[in-house]
Structure formats: structure tokens, C-alpha cells
């Protein structure tokens, strides 16, 4: 099997794993995901660049966990972490890139 095919097969397996059926999330899963999201959001705050959508996802995660819906809580916490990380990337890259838009 060529290297390209091996990589492609690997990607398909990974993709299948990400969308296929999985076990119900536990409270521990949620707590770990929420802690990671919260830490990323705090870093976004340190960079003065938090997103309202991250805050909303964190809030949804918390509310879902309070009702015992850990599947939803986990999904929202993971979404919050992804959003927070994107805001960090944005803030970091914009430290230089803002000049591209400047009027000269």
C-alpha cells in the first residue's frame, strides 16, 4: 500500500471514529472537558479577546451538567474549548497581522 493510501486509510478511520456511535459521557468526562475549556477561555481573557459564543457554550455546558445531561454537557464544553482556542489563535496572529489592514 502506498504512503498516500495509508494516510488516507488512517484519516478515514479517524473520521469514522469521530462520528460513529460512542459510549454515553460521564460526569468525569464533562469535568475534564469543562476544565480544559475554562482554562482556554481564561487565556483568551488574558489576551483580552474572549468570544461571546465561547461564554454561551460554557454556560450551556454547565446548565446541561446540572440537569445530569452529560452528553450535552460534554459536547458544549468541547465546543467551548475549540472556540476559546480559536480566539487565542486569533489574538496571537493579530499581534502582527493588524498592520496588513492599516491605511498608509
Amino acid at each position, binding site marked *: 500500500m502506498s504512503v498516500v493510501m495509508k494516510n488516507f486509510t488512517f484519516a478515514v478511520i479517524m473520521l469514522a471514529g*469521530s462520528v460513529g456511535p460512542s459510549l454515553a459521557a460521564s460526569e468525569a468526562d464533562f469535568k475534564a472537558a469543562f476544565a480544559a475549556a475554562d482554562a482556554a477561555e481564561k487565556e483568551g481573557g488574558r489576551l483580552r479577546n*474572549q468570544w461571546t459564543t465561547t461564554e454561551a457554550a460554557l454556560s450551556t455546558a454547565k446548565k446541561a451538567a446540572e440537569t445530569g445531561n452529560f452528553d450535552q454537557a460534554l459536547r458544549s464544553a468541547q*465546543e467551548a474549548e*475549540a472556540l476559546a482556542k480559536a*480566539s487565542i489563535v*486569533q489574538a496571537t496572529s493579530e499581534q502582527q497581522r493588524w498592520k496588513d489592514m492599516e*491605511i498608509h
Partner: protein
Amino acid sequence: MRTRPTLSILTAALALCALIGASSPAALAIDAVDPAADAKAFRDFFVKKFPQVKFEDFVNGPYSMNEDMRKQWKDKEQFPPYEFALEAGKEMFSKPFKNGKHYADCFENGGIGVRQTYPTFDEKEGQVITLELALNRCREVNGEQPYSYVKDEMAQLTAYMAFTSRGKPFDIKIPNDPRALEAYENGKRYFYTRRGQLNFSCASCHVQNPGERIRAEVLAPAFGILNAMPIYRSEWSGMGTTSRRFTTCNSQIRGVPLEPQSLEYRDLEYYLSYVSNGLPISGPGARP
């Protein structure tokens, strides 16, 4: 444990962009900051982009860009929606504090006709002082509680002070102090920096797209955008200050707003006001 949705892919893509961006040249040193050259380039950009707009008309924001809106505004100005705020502000301004002193005691020329000089750079403190901040400091030093920075009383007071400066050109000074230049540069960086989930900077709307519509609104040019502050906005059903405008803009692009009168917002106001030097104060204003 479940894996993450497609947002992870987006995050990875953004991370790659960041790595590419990280190889850009470092930010310029403060001694390379040239506010006068910036202001000239800024003015020239808008004058060239909108040759049909009279210079002093840039302070009228969307009304300078769209003839239909201009007609509606002219009609509205016969009974301007900021009139009640203006009257209330005048009354508040002249009413003494509990200690018998007045706002007039805190400002040059008794606070009349001085709005065009704000924000100022306070060389003792090493920071930008906006009119809103100066008003609340005046209250606090006279034993009064500070007002909210975003609307109501603060908007009324600034409406009155702006009115007493109508027609006077913005005259923002940047002293020969590296801290003032740094504040100016920080304001400029904030203006051009993309933020929020929508990845917009202030410039995305007010430099790249003035005159264009974003949903039902016509975007105002950045040149002269603060000259009409504070404003009555139909969208708000009331008056709002410069602080309100900044925080609302951030929310609209899905960014968490900073606290009103944060250093960043004050520096932003300093930059935007400076590059509009020469344009007349037209506040209080009315916007859709």
C-alpha cells in the same frame, strides 16, 4: 469519550495561520510612530474614496453616504430625538453637587466649548483621559457616586458638553511623550485588530466598507465617526456614549466587550479622535 466536532478542524486551520503570521516582522518601535503622517493618510484615504462628500460632512456618518437616509435625517433634525437628553444634561451640568461645587469647577473654561479637546493625554498620570472619565472623576472628587459610562446621565452630560462645542474642530494633542505615543499606537492597533468570532476589526466596517449596508444599516466612515458622540440611536431607543458604541460594536462581532473606559477603549478613542482632527464636533447626534 466523544471526540470533537468540526470546530477542531477550524481551530487547527487558525493555528496554522497563526504560525504563518508569527513570521511577520516585529511591531515598529515607538520612535517610528508618526501620528501626523497617519492622520494625513487617514484623511486622504476617505477624501479620495468619497470625492462627492464635502469634507465637513464626514461627521454625519451614514447620512453623508446615502441620500435617502440624509433626507430622513434632515426631517428628523427638526425635532431631534436627543433634545430631551440635551435639556437634561444642561440642567445637570448647572446643578451644584452636595458640596456646592459644580462640574464647571473641574474643567477649563467652566466646561463650555471644551469637548473638542477630549480625550487628552495626562502627562502626570501617563494615560489618556476621556471626557466621560473626567466627568466621573469630577463627581467622585466632589463626593458623588460615578455614573454608568454607557448611557442615561453620562450621555446627557456629554450631550450638553458636545453641544457647547458644536462647530469647533477636533483638536486632539499628542504631547512629545513616549507614553502618549504608545497610547496612540495602542489605540491604532486596537482599531485594526480583528476580534470576535466574526473576525472583524473596527476597520473591517468603517474603513473597508463605509457606505455599504450591513443588514439594514449603512456603515459610517471611521473619519469623523466620534464627532457626533454621544448619539441617540433608534436601535437603542435611547442615548448612548462613546463607551456604549465601542462595547456594542464588540458584541455585534461576537466578542466579549471590555469594561467601559478600559485602557484599550480610551486609547482607541484617542487614536480615532486624533485622526479626525480638523473635523467639527457635531454632537449630540442621531443615528438609525
